């Protein structure tokens, strides 16, 4: 039982559960204007009683986002190093039973992927791997050392590690870690990941604390929307983010917003999240966490993503390819591996940049450089 898990457990108390099930708009209205929301206030903002107050919440979320982030929107892109995976996550295109072409890039291929991505204008690269013993920390460190020559910011989305391994990554030039809990509902989590390398809920839950303790500058938490009831997951996600803000206070905390749309095989999304609920989550997060970056990927459609900027989103991926080798082999698809998920926003980084400028936003490709510290 870790301090974080204990705090999450407290949200299952009868009093918090009843707030989350509140149906009275008046109760919600009373907390929207508060400048410092407590977790119980957030439960009200996520409750069914808030559904008819979304416009009020959106206005407030807009004010906070403007005050804290102005018009800046950070852009990044993922670089998939490997789609080899021992995982059995039924919702994932990389799961080991999926009949796709498996590929792990060589260091030379990583470099040429990086070069291709860099030519598209991207300066923040997110390295992604499947959960497989072959995708080890040493190789990631080698990849990061190469890519940091081209990219001012290198972050990773990889299985959970030990603190000392996060320290190795920092040494190699990594400044951010993305690790989604997928769902905070432990029963659902355990059911979905039985027999998978991912079946240790607690080890995953505390991984970002280990990353923060090692000195990682950006910690990105998230839920994979669709796996469990979104109201309960959103409340716990917010608490996790707040916990990290308090305990890893030198790190910036971000909320990732991946949502399941289409899934492989016969898996049925248990709790689909519609656009309205998705937007609801974004604004509730903003009201509770004024300074957290909110990341929306190319899993979402262009117009929908752009509209989320006004109510809390601050970071987009752009021009993403979710298969290893996807950037350098645009024409020759036969040499790329299978993709993790389908892209719904196919705009190039250049087009995203132009579209955001037209909407009055400032697209930011570079807002950090490790050269400042080493």
């Amino acid at each position, binding site marked *: 039982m870790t301090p974080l898990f204990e705090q999450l457990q407290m949200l299952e108390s009868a009093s918090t559960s009843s707030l989350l099930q509140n149906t009275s708009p008046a109760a919600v209205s009373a907390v929207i204007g508060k400048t410092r929301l407590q977790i119980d206030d957030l439960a009200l903002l996520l409750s069914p009683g808030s559904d008819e107050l*979304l*416009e009020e919440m959106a206005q407030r979320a807009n004010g906070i986002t403007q005050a804290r982030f102005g018009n800046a929107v950070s852009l990044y892109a993922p670089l998939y190093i490997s789609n080899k995976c021992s995982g059995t996550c039924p919702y994932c295109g990389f799961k080991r039973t999926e009949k796709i072409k498996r590929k792990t890039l060589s260091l030379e291929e990583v470099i040429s992927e990086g070069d291709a991505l860099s030519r598209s204008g991207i300066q923040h690269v997110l390295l992604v791997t499947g959960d497989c013993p072959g995708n080890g920390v040493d190789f990631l460190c080698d990849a990061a050392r190469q890519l940091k020559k081209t990219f001012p910011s290198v972050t990773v989305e990889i299985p959970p590690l030990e603190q000392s391994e996060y320290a190795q990554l920092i040494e190699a030039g990594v400044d951010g870690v993305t690790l989604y809990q997928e769902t905070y509902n432990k029963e659902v989590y355990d059911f979905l990941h039985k027999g998978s390398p991912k079946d240790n809920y607690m080890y995953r839950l505390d991984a970002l604390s280990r990353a923060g303790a090692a000195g990682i500058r950006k910690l990105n938490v998230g839920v994979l929307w669709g796996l469990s009831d979104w109201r309960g997951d959103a409340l716990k996600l917010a608490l996790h983010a707040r916990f990290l803000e*308090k*305990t890893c206070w030198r790190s910036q905390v971000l909320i990732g917003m991946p949502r399941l749309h289409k899934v492989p095989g016969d898996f049925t999304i248990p709790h689909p999240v519609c656009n309205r609920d998705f*937007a609801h989550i974004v604004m509730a997060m903003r009201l509770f966490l004024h300074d957290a970056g909110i990341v929306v990927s190319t899993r979402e459609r262009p117009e929908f993503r752009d*509209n989320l900027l006004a109510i809390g989103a601050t970071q987009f991926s752009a021009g993403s390819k979710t298969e290893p080798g996807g950037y350098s082999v645009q024409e020759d698809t036969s040499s790329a591996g299978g993709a993790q998920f389908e892209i719904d926003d196919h705009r190039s980084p250049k087009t995203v940049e132009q579209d955001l400028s037209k909407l009055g936003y400032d697209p930011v490709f570079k807002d950090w450089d490790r050269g400042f510290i080493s």
Partner: protein
Amino acid sequence: MTDQLVIAGRSFSSRLLVGTGKFSSAQVMKEAVEASGAEIVTVALRRVDLDAPSDNMLAALDMDKYLILANTSGARDAKEAVRLAKIARDGGLPPWVKIEVTPDPRTLLPDPIETLKAAEELVKDGFTVLPYMPADPILAKHLEEVGCATLMPLGAMIGSGMGIRTRDAIEIIIDNATVPVVVDAGLGLPSHAAEAMEMGADAVLANTALAIAQNPRQISEAFKLATIAGRMGYLAGPAGSSKGANASSPLTGFIR
């Protein structure tokens, strides 16, 4: 009563801490402390004659009833504060210390650098450390990291009775704290104590306001009630203020 203040694993029912300085007599002090309902009472070590305990403020207090929290008032740097704390412990007081390092005798403002140094050393030496500190959110995180059991940011200059002038900074400290926050110094009125508790402070500390009132016993009780009222107000989840209707263009048209 389930709503307990827990400091370093020890539970307290009262969220009002009181000091013992500036009273007109030991008897008046004793009555005021009793009326306050406080369970933690801070005593300036410099005023205690550890060799003749019957001859000082300590003698007036039932040591079994209160946690006596020695403070290092008068210390001008970390070295002096550490020395004072050790003298208190050697003299038989509990190993709990409220660090006060105030090099400027005019303002008595706490020295952030020396306070941090003293805190680090005393924690390592096994003390439960409660530091009186400037309302600085970053200093607060550093003090937590060296192992302090609470944070005790000042509301205003000690003894000023000016109320909570550092409100914005204290709110940040409260929002980010992983240990209890005790608002210390500057609370002149019961309403100031209530305000701190409504803000979400875990406790408050008062001394001068109690000691120099015309009726110390009565104002101590008022502080006790105000602290309880403020805490209840906080726990009740009060409504936020609203500026009324929004005139801006709709932002949720895209999800209708």
